[in-house]
């Protein structure tokens, strides 16, 4: 008699039966579609970062060249 409630409980808590077939649909449910916003923000951010990085590399190389020019100008004897 004591085991009956436990038996009933274990029957209730049984995992659902495994999927017996796959049903194809042409479109994903709305809730499962990829949200577009993160992709959009990533795309815009990448362009900004890439351009800023390139501009920074030009500025850095230009500073180095200007330093070389100054050093060479100091070495050149005044005529």
């Amino acid at each position, binding site marked *: 008699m004591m085991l009956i409630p436990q038996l009933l409980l274990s029957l209730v808590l049984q995992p659902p039966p495994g999927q017996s077939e796959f049903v194809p649909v042409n479109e994903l449910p709305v809730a499962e579609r*990829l949200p*577009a*916003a993160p*992709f*959009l923000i*990533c*795309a*815009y951010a*990448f*362009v*900004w970062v*890439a*351009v800023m990085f*390139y*501009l920074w590399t*030009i500025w850095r*190389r*230009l500073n180095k*060249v*200007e330093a*070389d*020019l100054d050093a*060479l*100008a100091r*070495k*050149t004897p005044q005529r």
Partner: protein
Amino acid sequence: MKKAFIPLLSVVAVMFVVAPFLIANAPYESTMGLIQKIFYYHVPSWFAMYLAIGVSGVASAIYLFKGTPIADAYANAGAEVAVVFGLCGLITGPLWGRVAWGVWWQWDVRLTTALLLELIFVAYLMVRRYGGPGAEKLAAATALFGTATAPFVYKSVDIWRTVHPQTSVIPTLKPSMGGPFAFSALAFLLLSTLLLTARVHLAKRQMMVDQLYLAHEDQP
């Protein structure tokens, strides 16, 4: 151009701040929704790349046939800027495709030729860097080859069947979409011009350093 550089850079910076607001107010596309708004950065990136390729190609032809050093400086600058904007196009495209098509990449004609075009100009820069003496001429020939490839990349979507939207989407844009697109395209083309100018200025200064080094070596 030197005096106009900072004011023009400020104008471009303002345009890049204003552009997202115009793009946000543009209507959604009926089938793709929000993700289609990548279009306003993706296509202008390619336009900016094509401009840089044009500069690199013409300058390479001049350098090959006349040997003018300044033409070589323009060719190198064009190739570098082309690689930067090409990379922007190649990154924003798959981000768009992942949501619109469900995949990051498709080996179709447009995507594959666009990748090859980027690789040609990466090859140009690698030849310049590691090619040793005389690499400038070899690089110039590479740039000419890349420039000749560019029109095929642009027209590929109209010639072959591909998942990529056709070129006809741009002239048929409704004014509500066409306005923000034209603004964004103008901002990218101006930015490309400014980056080219800055890079050519760097090359000119580098040439001055080289000439001074040679003058020092010639001194007794």
